[in-house]
């Protein structure tokens, strides 16, 4: 599990391809493609933020849905009551996600491994339970409908491009974080928390920072989603959502920067395509996932990377007669 910084060209190409793909989606003129693109962007951001915690720092959280949901409910509650305009509510999601992580994080990072995972799950389920049951405040299992956004981006197409801008800006930020000295410390915590501690690094402080950053991006994703759909539901906080984002990240590959985005795209695409023909799309997701775990354990991008490397090294040895 390494975030590999490949050649500069390769990286620019990845950014370019990703950017172009999302930029041309609306030209098709098909509304469902725009919806799908928007969902991929939002879940991609959610998954990339999660990977900051899992792929980079090595902490498997099963409670990320709590941050995603908090973001969505921050936008939903603030806007449906007309407390503040959209341009204040959206940044407020990041504050909400950060604060939640600051509250839950210190409790969770006392533990490591499976216990850390379980504790994040337990706290996330508690948050879900509160949102689900607190009818007077959150609307309970009715959720919140008719959430307004700012007039400038009320049009779905404009909102799509707005989402794209925010998401790509966040990707750039995440890239900066991963490549910074701070990111290097996170990676060394993943490889060996004990030795990192011996070097004089306050490991827990860095782990908490990773949780906060990851929570901030998840909440931002939730807020963006609430603004696009105009309606939210407690299911956004359910543990299956946390499972989904783990799935996307692992599927795309934790070791490549755009892996989680790729995983999000694959999962959402499959859900959509198969959902049209049969109501039993879960079994397909499950089957594909099973095949990937057994045959392509490095995720989609990871596996393609391996193929490319093998093909290149094969090419280099083409004239070598002694090569088997």
């Amino acid at each position, binding site marked *: 599990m390494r975030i590999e910084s490949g050649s500069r060209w390769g990286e620019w190409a990845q950014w370019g391809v990703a950017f172009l793909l999302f930029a041309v989606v609306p030209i098709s003129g098909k509304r469902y493609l725009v919806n799908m693109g928007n969902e991929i962007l939002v879940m991609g951001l959610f998954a990339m933020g999660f990977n900051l915690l899992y792929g980079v720092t090595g902490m498997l959280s099963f409670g990320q849905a709590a941050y995603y949901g908090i973001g969505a409910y921050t936008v939903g509650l603030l806007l449906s009551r007309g407390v503040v305009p959209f341009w204040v509510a959206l940044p407020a999601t990041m504050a909400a996600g950060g604060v939640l992580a600051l509250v839950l994080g210190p409790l969770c990072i006392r533990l490591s491994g499976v216990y850390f995972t379980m504790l994040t799950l337990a706290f996330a389920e508690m948050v879900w339970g509160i949102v689900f049951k607190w009818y007077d405040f959150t609307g309970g299992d009715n959720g919140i409908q008719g959430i307004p956004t700012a007039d400038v981006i009320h049009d779905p197409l404009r909102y799509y491009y707005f989402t794209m801008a925010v998401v790509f800006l966040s990707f750039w930020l995440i890239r900066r974080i991963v490549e910074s000295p701070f990111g290097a410390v996170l990676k060394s915590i993943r490889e060996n928390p004990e030795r990192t501690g011996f070097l004089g690094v306050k490991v827990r402080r860095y782990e908490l920072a990773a949780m906060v950053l990851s929570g901030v991006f998840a909440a931002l994703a939730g807020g963006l989603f609430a603004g696009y759909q105009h309606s939210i539901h407690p299911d956004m906080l359910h*543990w299956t959502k946390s499972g989904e984002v783990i799935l996307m990240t692992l599927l795309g590959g934790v070791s490549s920067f755009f892996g989680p985005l790729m995983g999000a795209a694959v999962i959402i695409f499959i859900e959509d395509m198969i959902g049209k023909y049969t109501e039993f799309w*879960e*079994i397909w997701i*499950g089957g594909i*996932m099973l095949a990937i775990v057994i045959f392509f354990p490095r995720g989609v991008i990871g596996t393609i990377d391996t193929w490319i490397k093998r093909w290149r090294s094969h090419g280099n040895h083409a004239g070598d007669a002694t090569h088997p």
Partner: protein
Amino acid sequence: MTLFLTASGLTLIFGVVNVFNFAHGSFYLLGAYFAYQAVAVSGVGFWAGVALAALGAGAAGAMMEYVFLRRIYGRSGEAGMQILLTYSFILILDDVVKMTWGTDYKSIARPEALAGPFSIGEITIPRYDVMVIAVGLAVALGMWGVIRKTGFGRNLRAISANRDMASALGVNVPLNLSAVFGLATALGGLSGALSAPVRTVTPGAGIEVIIGSLIVVVIGGLGNFWGALVGAVIIGEATAFGILFLPQWAILFSYAVMALVLIFRPEGLLMKQGVATR
């Protein structure tokens, strides 16, 4: 007590196979539907139906281990792979159940002998519940006997302590792992079958069950068999008190208990004096 039955299977798998079986709730679900199929559709007797359901779920579990899970043992990043693989089985089994039996609520009748109430002095409880508690205790004792007193149990303890060493000493590790997976998922299936007359059977129940037994297992200590029993009792009581005093927030109680245990005794309540699998 059904909580204990499911959780004991989960903890057994964690203790011996060192796998966190996220799909455990789905075997509970399979057990419930197998029992429905056997009792309500095919019309075999209640007890035969329950036994068949446990056997069926166990066979499915052993197959999952034999065909899929064993391919990923020892891989780098195994924990993530385990979660992914068992999670994929939640999705697959959920849909298999929906395809086979539809999404309607299903239920089976309690056997007549167990339909009435049972009284001790002034306390009255349904006879069926008494039976479930008895079965649970019998399973707990039986499992204790198997693990402590039989050759199979000795192998399991050896594998749990050091898999490579057990293998070097001639224990057939892969076979034992499949067997323990089958046994544990059979417990899950038994639990589902016994719950079928009490709660209605629906697809999606598996997900509630896995969270519930997860909490129980974590409270008792992962891999600790008696811990599962203690954890189940604590969670049962906590939920009952929750329903009594704060019905709206009852579901939060078990999470609160789990969070408290994890903060103060992260290894689980019974981990030090664990007797069963460790």
